[in-house]
């Protein structure tokens, strides 16, 4: 058999022999890119502090991933961009005024405890960035619930603190919110632009929507989670949101404020920690929406998106397990068996 001794030696791998151009790292970097508008808005409104916080969390996220993989002898895969994205999202989820150790510890918790200890990319149960945020929120609630007021452009560095729109809504009610923002229209525009207190990447609804739509169009995420999430929130806000009784709530405020847009488009959609069968994703989205509104309206926190997503993360293995698909031709088989 001189076949093997031929002048050519060919690559012999199993079919298929052609692959699509899509790669994991390309996905991660594209998602990061689509977050850029919102990030820039954050920088614009909150100035250098915001930049520092974001940079810190990205750097420490990537670094801790690299170090962990070195120590545990895995082949370092920071180039896949997932830890970068985690760091970025964590940064965007923090108040701009937090002390430096918060983004650092948050990132370490996110990447090392939440992701690597569970087996690394693809195996983590919980959304790393959000666990990172929850961890620091519970550890230093004070620092994490003092919000600096948006100071357009890089001027005033001695930023003064205020409450977030949702905070006001919860603690002092609609009336006071109107006092602060003047008219409803004014409020909406401010929320859309992001000229309000909040986490540095969550404030500008319009920029986030732009990014989300971009991802949808390019097929990096599907409509199932974001739409079922947003839809549920809007519905519940309208039905139960109003002080004047049922069906008097204002869905728009709830849609535009807080981390909802960021959560619905970029965090609930995390492939790894959400169900992968589309039917399951709708359940997931509805669950997120319901819990978000439960916490916002009745809970101890003004904002509920983070906890809602984390709670649904707990359930996604269960959902994935119970929502299965019937293979092509399956029903027929059963019929046959009945016969």
């Amino acid at each position, binding site marked *: 058999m001189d076949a093997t001794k031929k002048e050519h030696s060919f690559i012999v791998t199993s079919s298929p022999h052609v692959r699509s151009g899509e790669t994991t790292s390309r996905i991660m970097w594209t998602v990061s890119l689509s977050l850029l508008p919102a990030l820039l808005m954050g920088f614009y409104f909150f100035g250098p502090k915001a930049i520092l916080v974001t940079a810190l969390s990205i750097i420490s996220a990537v670094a801790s991933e690299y170090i962990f993989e070195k120590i545990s002898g895995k082949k370092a895969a920071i180039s896949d961009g997932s830890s970068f994205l985690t760091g970025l999202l964590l940064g965007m989820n923090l108040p701009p005024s937090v002390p430096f150790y918060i983004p650092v510890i948050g990132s370490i918790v996110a990447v090392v405890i939440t992701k690597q200890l569970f087996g690394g990319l693809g195996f983590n149960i919980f959304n790393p960035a959000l666990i990172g945020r929850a961890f620091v929120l519970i550890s230093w*609630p*004070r620092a994490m*619930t*003092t919000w600096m007021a948006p100071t357009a452009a890089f001027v005033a560095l001695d930023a003064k603190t205020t409450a977030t729109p949702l905070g006001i809504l919860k*603690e002092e009610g609609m009336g006071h919110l109107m006092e602060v923002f003047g008219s409803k229209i004014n409020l909406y525009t401010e929320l859309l632009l992001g000229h309000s207190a909040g986490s540095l990447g969550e404030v500008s609804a319009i920029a986030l929507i732009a990014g989300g739509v971009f991802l949808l169009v390019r097929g990096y995420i599907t409509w199932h989670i974001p739409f079922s999430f947003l839809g549920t929130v809007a519905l519940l806000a309208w039905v139960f949101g109003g002080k004047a009784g049922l069906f008097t709530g204002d869905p728009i405020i709830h849609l535009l404020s807080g981390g909802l847009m960021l959560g619905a488009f970029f965090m609930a959609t995390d492939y790894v920690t959400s169900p992968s069968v589309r039917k399951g994703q709708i359940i997931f989205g509805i669950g997120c929406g319901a819990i978000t509104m439960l916490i916002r309206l009745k809970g101890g926190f003004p904002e509920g998106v983070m906890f809602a997503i984390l709670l649904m993360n707990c359930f996604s293995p269960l959902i994935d397990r119970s929502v299965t698909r019937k293979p092509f031709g399956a029903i027929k088989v059963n019929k046959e068996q009945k016969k």
Partner: protein
Amino acid sequence: MTAKDMISIMFNLTVLYLIGGLILAGVYAKTSPIMYQNELKEKQEALKEVMPRADEMIKLGEWAPHHKHAEYFEGVKGAEKLGYVVQGFGKGYSSYINLFVAVDKDFVVRNVKILHHAETPGLGDEIMNESFTDQFKGKTLDHLVVVKRETDKDIQAITGATISSRAVTEGVREGVRMIMEKMSGEVKE
């Protein structure tokens, strides 16, 4: 099983119950009065704290804020009526906050003491701090409201713990209102 087993089981049980019973009864006899004393002592001390000048506390009655069992007292020094101490409850962040509020005869708050709470350590539990409770001193009913900015007329919320702050204030306010309604009936001169 045989009669013999029966007997031995019987024997076992009786002996054990005897010994066990004796020990437990003994311990109970020893400890229960102490427990009782402890509880009494704590209450008395708390009362004394909120109204130091009083040398006697007369229990006037009971009421049920938030369906909880609460009492209220009158503090007297000799013949002089100093004022009242009311036990109140406020619905906090993760627990009901149980407190004493002392008011003088014209229902101005003199003192507030948190008896028990299970708020978040390092956050909600700062309601225990003097800096917070002292705000109540000298306040009258209409100023027992929480605001979230600098104030001297009203009660300023602890940042990051508005809910707990509110709970305490509400507990105090309800107590004061209750005692006013109760007393303004009789204690009118």
